[in-house]
């Protein structure tokens, strides 16, 4: 015979009463579309306890910096004459760009998982019959997932910054600029002054050849914006990024993975299939975006710019953009972009990124709210 024990810990004595023995209200407005802290925390728990997913995300975000920097530190410690110090501006840029690519994919994987597993594991209906707003269930996934990917990317980036700053080669003192050595860390006015004071180097930099000094000075003043842009692009190759530049790069990296997560979540919720979502997200990141960013497609320029990857590429800070080529005016993070297409205004970049975040969130929440559970 089954032993039936009373629920002694339950705060209410009458079934269905929403007040505890002290008369305090226990209900927390389950119909509200705003997620509670408890919802977010338990969704985070559910995602964090997926060992396979977590290992994959850690590998994608941390493996490259740990391996590359670890080996370089080791080699340099063992044989400092043959091996350069672990940190360098170019290694910094390469690792950050790798982190951006892999971080986006890792975030998309977490987003796709967060958006689909309630359905595929049959728990969605249990959650729905609690009476909790489906929109709240969806919105809880956003901070829960971001709380996994953003810290991992931050740790990886911090590691890169620390090695670059404290175990790096001494910074260069000059930039090799079209065969001309120019001192580093000049602002635009200082660069103009330096070029006017060194007409021979200025003419070499401009590629005009020997001529009257007055003509060279006029050309320098006329093209100083272009010259300064090229100078800034060349500078990161010899100079570790300053603290404020590192902060910009870190912010951009977090934006990149944040967008990857939100889009993956929205697409996953819309499709309800994790694998398909992940394949589409990887295709977007490594096939579609490079094509749209690297080629001018006739009469499709605005279409190319609507790709969030293109907008994010143009937002790429100068410390990273300079190492992968490209040109164009400074973006939000002071970057020059890596695009082969003409740049878009900053407001347009922000609109595209915000549109992708909002659009996919709305579509994901709508599908979740209307889906049969």
């Amino acid at each position, binding site marked *: 015979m089954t032993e039936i024990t009373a629920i002694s*810990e339950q705060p209410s004595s009458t079934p*269905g009463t929403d007040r505890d023995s002290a008369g305090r209200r226990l209900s927390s407005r389950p119909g509200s579309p705003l997620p509670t802290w*408890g919802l977010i925390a338990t969704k985070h728990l559910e995602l964090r*306890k997926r060992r396979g997913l977590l290992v994959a995300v850690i590998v994608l975000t941390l493996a490259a910096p740990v391996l590359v920097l670890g080996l370089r530190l080791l080699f340099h410690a063992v044989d400092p004459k043959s091996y350069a110090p672990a940190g360098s501006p170019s290694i910094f840029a390469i690792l950050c760009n790798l982190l951006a690519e892999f971080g986006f994919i890792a975030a998309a994987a977490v987003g796709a998982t967060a958006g689909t597993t309630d359905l595929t594991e049959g728990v969605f209906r249990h959650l729905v019959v609690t009476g909790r707003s489906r929109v709240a269930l969806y919105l809880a996934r956003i901070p829960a997932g971001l709380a996994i990917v953003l810290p991992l990317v931050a740790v990886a980036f911090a590691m890169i910054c620390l090695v670059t700053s404290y175990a790096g080669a001494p910074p260069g003192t000059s930039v090799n600029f079209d065969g001309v050595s120019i001192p580093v860390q000049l602002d635009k006015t200082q660069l103009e002054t330096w070029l006017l004071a060194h007409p021979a180097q200025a003419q070499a930099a401009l590629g005009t050849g020997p001529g009257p000094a007055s003509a060279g000075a006029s050309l320098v003043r006329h093209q100083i914006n272009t010259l300064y842009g090229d100078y800034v692009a060349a500078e990161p190759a010899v100079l570790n990024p300053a603290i404020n530049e590192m902060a910009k790069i870190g912010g951009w990296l977090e934006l990149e993975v944040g967008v990857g997560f939100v889009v993956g979540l929205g697409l996953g919720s819309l499709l309800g299939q994790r694998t398909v979502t992940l394949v589409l997200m990887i295709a977007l990141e490594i096939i579609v975006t490079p094509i749209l960013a690297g080629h001018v497609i006739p009469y499709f320029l605005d279409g190319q710019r609507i790709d969030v990857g293109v907008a994010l590429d143009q937002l790429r800070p100068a410390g990273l953009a300079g190492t992968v080529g490209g040109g164009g005016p400074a973006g939000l993070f002071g970057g020059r972009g890596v695009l082969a297409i003409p740049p*878009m205004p900053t407001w347009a970049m922000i609109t595209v990124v915000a*549109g992708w975040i909002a659009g996919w969130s709305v579509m994901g929440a*709508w599908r979740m709210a209307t889906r049969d559970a």
Partner: protein
Amino acid sequence: MLGLPILILLLVVSGLAVGAVRLSARRRGRPERGQSIRLETTPEVARVADREVLTPADSGRAARLPALPPMSPLQTPAGGWAVETHGLTKRFGPNVAVDDVELLVPRGCAFGYLGPNGAGKTTLIRTLLGLTHADGGTMSLLGIGVPAERSKALGRVGAIVDEPRFYGHLTGRENLRVLAAARGGGAGLRIGSALTRVRLADRADDKVASYSMGMRQRLGVAACLLADPELLILDEPMNGLDPAGMHEMREMIRAFVAEGRTVMLSSHLLDEVERTCDAVAIVDRGRVVRQGSIDDLVRGRGTVVQVDCSDPAGAARLIDASTIAAEMTIGDGSLTLTLAPAATREVVAEINRRIVDGGISVYGLGEVRTTLEDWFLSVTTRLGDTP
């Protein structure tokens, strides 16, 4: 240059969002602005009178039912029925899964929603719980209209739909934490007691992936208890359970009823429903064909008496010549009589007297108990007697 396409994109996204919200509201029966929904008794309720309807006073298992005031089927009890539907309809394309269902489940009893596979039992439950939208009709849980006040109603309802499924990589306790967080309020405080009650406390910290089917069913019941529910809706709760597990589940359901909760369960296991429930509704091809207390429904077929005797044909003639009203079937060495439902034991004794007085030897005489299964098969169309 770029402004125009972005503006168009934003307009399209906004338009989609607004359209989606309106479509969602329409599909889920939510009132749009300026549109009202009647949650009160509608004229359709009159159709209930055409059916057998259980009221608490009707129940033949008074000892198992809590004392509730008698009421007319058309009179809504104080606080409303546990479950009430009128004209509820759900279609999947041309297939009508739930067809104009009128259902009244009284409070404080175990109510079986009985039907063969594919009859629409799970679909009705999914519709009641807002897991899928209804195509027509009205419904309420615990007197609260759904879907209009779905969140409020479900706050007092615990439910298992289909088989209970959980995150396999989380422990039982963690799964309950997830569901308690979704419920909010004091649900989190009930996790420990719910696990104890379903006798899972010692396995609560094991991953659900290692649980047996029976343990998952019990965890599902524990999840229901997080709501401290007035109404439990269990979809095929005996599925996959061994005899001991079925017994345990049955005891648990009866204990819930004894506490004043209402349990509505769907099943195709007639014997289990008969043992567990006070009342049933029989559903066939999406329609509720009968509902009422089990005793009343089964007794409605009449009292069947079988007489083993030396001359069944002679016995039949003797009964026919008497004033006893009965349908008779002559078998090989026996006579089967179907008496009126209200027939008393004295009538059975009179049958015996008549046959013995007529010089026929009686070897055995007894009442044949009609089971729910007999009755179920007689009213459903699975035997092919009705198109």
